[in-house]
């Protein structure tokens, strides 16, 4: 019996591995074609992206930190059956709030909590509209993203700019920054440690708590949830709030732990929420998988910047690959069919 279970588990993991690798092959394969169409040295571009980003581990983990958070910000609502495309805006407001609080209080903890709270508030707003007013969360999320995009740029440009460097915001005061800690084998940013611990907490909440169980039941079927005595609306609201909190955490951690100031065009934080969607899907909506996926994806993003220096192809190539991988990951059934067909072939060959 136990052996059977173990075999089933291995088979499941193998299927996941096949799905992920086929999606990655599709993503990279199609991007090779697109790059060739635009006259870039496609193979050189892709090989740089896959290798160059993984040399500086500390930088890699710094860049991965916000993606872990936005990945979880998408994953928790997804398990409840909701699509939190709003992590982009939640991250903006988390960053902005953390910056304001850090600037005025110079207190790292208050700034971090402020960022989390602001993100959670936006998440709760979207969740409330979905659960109690039946407004599609994808539409509200995008509207909120644009509103917060202009709000943040406006605030940075007119109220928080650094007089010495006008295209930049005021910096986070040194006392509110999150530095690095030495682990003996090497040093690692406190921000990455915090986000990893939060990922573990998310894992415990989702898979070891009553709330996580309720979230997953609601995601599985609203009817089942009602029969089980779960109020799906409340759970949807809670899941979106949690998602928003994580996105806000990502913004605050990235600001306090690494970038310390935001340029007024927000290029340092733009797109981190959307990339988190890819991270969540690559990590199979599992917080620990998301940590690994975000390291991989930020490696791609860094590789993309190095590729730009070498070949002139813009770093958005990394986004094209990620978008293609997301699309490819949406059709697990296709890969299962391929696997099943290969299996039947092999069995027939054995006969």
């Amino acid at each position, binding site marked *: 019996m136990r052996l059977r279970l173990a075999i089933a588990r291995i088979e499941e993991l193998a299927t996941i591995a096949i799905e992920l690798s086929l999606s990655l092959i599709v993503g990279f394969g199609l991007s090779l074609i697109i790059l060739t169409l635009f006259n870039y040295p496609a193979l050189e571009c892709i090989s740089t992206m896959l290798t160059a980003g993984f040399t500086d581990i500390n930088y890699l983990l710094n860049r991965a930190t916000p993606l872990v958070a936005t990945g979880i910000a998408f994953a928790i609502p997804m398990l409840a059956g909701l699509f939190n495309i709003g992590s982009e805006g939640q991250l903006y407001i988390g960053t902005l709030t953390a910056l304001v609080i850090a600037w005025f209080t110079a207190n790292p903890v208050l700034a971090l909590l402020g960022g989390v709270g602001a993100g959670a508030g936006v998440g709760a707003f979207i969740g409330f509209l979905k659960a109690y007013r039946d407004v599609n969360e994808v539409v509200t999320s995008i509207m909120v993203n644009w509103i917060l995009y202009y709000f943040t740029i406006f605030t940075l440009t007119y109220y928080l700019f650094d007089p010495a460097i006008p295209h930049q915001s005021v910096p986070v005061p040194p006392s509110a920054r999150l530095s690095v800690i030495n682990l003996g084998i090497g040093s690692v940013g406190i921000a990455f440690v915090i986000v990893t611990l939060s990922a573990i907490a998310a894992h415990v909440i989702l898979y070891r708590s009553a709330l996580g169980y309720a979230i997953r039941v609601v995601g599985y079927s609203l009817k089942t949830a009602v029969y089980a005595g779960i109020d799906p609306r409340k759970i949807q609201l809670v899941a979106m709030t949690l998602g928003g909190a994580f996105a806000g955490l990502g913004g605050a951690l990235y600001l306090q732990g690494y970038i310390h100031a935001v340029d007024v065009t927000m290029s340092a934080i733009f797109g981190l929420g959307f990339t988190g969607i890819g991270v969540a899907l690559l990590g199979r909506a599992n917080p620990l998988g998301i940590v690994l996926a975000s390291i991989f994806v930020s490696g791609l993003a860094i590789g993309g910047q190095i590729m730009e220096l070498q070949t002139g192809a813009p770093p958005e*190539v990394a986004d094209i690959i990620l978008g293609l991988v997301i699309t490819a990951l949406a059709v697990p059934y296709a890969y299962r069919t391929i696997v099943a067909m290969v299996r039947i072939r092999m069995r027939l060959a054995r006969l």
Partner: protein
Amino acid sequence: MIYILTTFINALNFMVPILLASIGEILTERSGIVNIGIEGILNLSAFTSAVAAFTTGNPFLGFVVGIATGALLGLVHGVLSTYLRGDQIIIGIGVNIVSYSIGVLGLIALWKQHGASPRIPSLPLISISEGLSISLLALVSPILAIAVWWFLTKTDIGLKIRACGEDPRAAEAMGIKVFRMQVMATVLGAMLSGVAGSYLVLGIVSQFVRGIAAGRGFIALANVAFSGWNPLIAILGAYIFGFLDALAISLQIAIGAIALAYPLRMIPYIGTLAIVSMFRWRARAPRYLGKPYIKE
């Protein structure tokens, strides 16, 4: 006074992309398929039509290429959502990211620009008075909306499309090829979004700008729900949403304070948010909307 009049007439021009994308999405959603990738279709068809019009100098050819781009993305979305049982929302998210990024890549690869392309030959406008003109599509798109309404409610094939969205099992039992019908509705809808995307370049802006759709695809999605999946009411909705766009621009010109440019740009999004959360036509979504139909 003149500002007010300009705003109301300009709103007709801004209504066009939202209306075209909305009626396309209504057609698609009535068959049971949600395509949130219309934002991406707007971005990519804007880009391809810009390239075509720029290289050939012919804006009409640009339109053809833009529509073909929409059809291609619709075909991908349709096939992945039906035969391959993909998650429709996830596919849409992926398409949106890919399309946006291809536009950015193309700007840099073809024009060595990060923000906007050079001038693109655009369609002739109908001049109303000094500095005030409307696009031909402002008149054509409401007619298209009526045509889509007629197609969905009065024709045999429209009935079949709606049957797929309401109950695909029953439709299949009636002998309708559900997947084929859904793919067709998705391709047709995406072609209308392709027109909308081309119009952004060839009708309004006369150049391709990074992320030119600027959320209009999602505003169209909001309009679909607002309209209660009715193309006729979608005309009204699209005019309201287009008006918000035009209002933001008029206010920027009227007030002239640069500092207020960013807050004013929020108007269309705040307005959309307010409208979708407060008003709702008494209609329900197609019963099988967004749910994968799995054939036995």
